[in-house]
């Protein structure tokens, strides 16, 4: 299930977008070509179907569980721990670290695990980049409960009492170099903390390992993305370069790739009640540091269990 995920609320994308609207000097004014591209992108956004919470289809998910189970069990040898930590009912915010480029094998394994453990009847949504959920070829994602990463969708999902999975690290983390595979990097995106506070929902960190061994990730290509204005046009902060099947050198990963059969291990940590743990008005910076520290410690422990890359 290829997926492009971004964090809810103010994100790097939002920052970049904000700078576009600011008064600019003549020297830094966008060229006619860039303005035309941006207008085309806006037009495309209007034409493309936007993800809708109602598009989630439990029967469809149930029908696809065997395929996901085959993929997760035989290819990724998935192992998901700590599902018992997740509250049985009510809205929750699941916060994960993200790996594996656009193929996001950790999301595949976790979606299967969540859906089989709690049943497809429990509403479960995942925030993803609107570009990803709008692609006709990826229309099935919407039926899995993948919705565009907008603050409105995040709010609606929690208001409906759903479990919501977010990846604050977005493409910045998903496309990090392989040398940083065992590092949690949420890119200072703190929108998820405000979201949890606004809705007074528990926050459950979900830590995964193995996804970043499914290809050799060389660089995020952030400068390249900026140079090509992909951040302003499509909200893409990275144009990653990797070595992956079947392409060899893979620039952008827009067509995805065949992930290597690395063992994926995921652990859901005990829920964090932000107001109970950090007081009535928690400092987002402090909470962010705490969550990242917690996730990094878990990732270090999971990494310590692995004997060999891919094999696990």
């Amino acid at each position, binding site marked *: 299930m290829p997926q492009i995920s971004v964090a809810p609320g103010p994100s790097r994308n939002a920052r970049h977008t904000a700078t576009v609207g600011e008064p600019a000097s003549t020297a830094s004014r966008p060229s006619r070509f860039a303005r035309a591209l941006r207008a085309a992108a806006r037009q495309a956004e209007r034409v493309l179907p936007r993800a809708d919470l109602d598009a989630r289809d439990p*029967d469809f998910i*149930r*029908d*696809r*569980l*065997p*395929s996901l*189970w*085959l993929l*997760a*069990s*035989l290819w*990724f*040898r*998935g*192992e*998901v721990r700590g*599902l*018992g930590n997740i509250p*049985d009912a009510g809205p929750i915010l699941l916060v994960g670290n993200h790996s594996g480029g656009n193929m996001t094998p950790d999301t595949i*394994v976790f979606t*299967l*695990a969540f859906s*089989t*453990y*709690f*049943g*497809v*009847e429990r509403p479960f949504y995942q925030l993803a980049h609107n570009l990803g959920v709008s692609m006709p070829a990826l229309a099935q994602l919407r039926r899995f409960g993948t919705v565009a990463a907008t603050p409105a969708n995040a709010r609606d999902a929690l208001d409906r009492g759903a479990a919501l999975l977010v990846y604050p690290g977005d493409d910045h983390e998903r496309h990090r170099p392989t040398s940083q595979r065992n590092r949690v990097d949420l890119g200072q995106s703190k929108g998820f903390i405000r979201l949890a506070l606004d809705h007074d929902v528990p926050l459950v960190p979900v830590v995964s390992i193995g996804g970043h061994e499914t290809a050799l990730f060389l660089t995020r290509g952030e400068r390249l993305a900026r140079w090509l204005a992909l951040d302003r046009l499509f909200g893409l902060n990275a144009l990653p370069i990797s070595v992956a099947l079947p392409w060899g050198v893979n620039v952008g990963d827009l067509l995805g790739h065949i992930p290597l059969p690395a063992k994926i291990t995921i652990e859901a940590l005990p829920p964090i009640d932000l107001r109970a743990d950090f007081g009535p008005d928690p400092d987002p910076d402090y909470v962010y540091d705490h969550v990242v520290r917690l996730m990094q410690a878990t990732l270090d422990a999971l990494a310590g269990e692995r004997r060999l890359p891919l094999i696990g």
Partner: protein
Amino acid sequence: MRVSANIHIAAPREAVWANISDPGRVLSFMSGVTRWEIADERRTGLGARYRTVLRIGAAEVGGLIEVVEWVAPAELAWTSVTGLDQRGRWRLREAPGERTQVELRLAYGVAGSGLSGWLAERIAAPSVAGHLRRSLEQLRRMSEHAQLRERAAERRPGR
């Protein structure tokens, strides 16, 4: 897909029934089951509901099940209400020499999932059958040890 396993246990049928019908003891002998919680006011009997989870491959497959047949001490059957489609049955029959023949059946599947469902059911079958065999072995040990303890207690004088 349907899998089953059989075993003979050197204990009376009532003693085995006491183990399989008590939701508090299920986790002690059911292999692969990571959760078996009472989900309703009714603890046992017809209509009792439990929230269960069984580990199969990469997934812990769970759901709400309901007891649909309860004939003590012979038959206990359940069916899924939510989650993976499943039907299960305990069959207890008296065997010669104060023994009990125990059969555990489990039928499972995902209706409408096509070829992948057919394939997944078959690939999962050895793992599920292994869980059933180990469950019966553990049930046998549990029931027979309880019998041994009872007999030992009877032999002790003045108690």
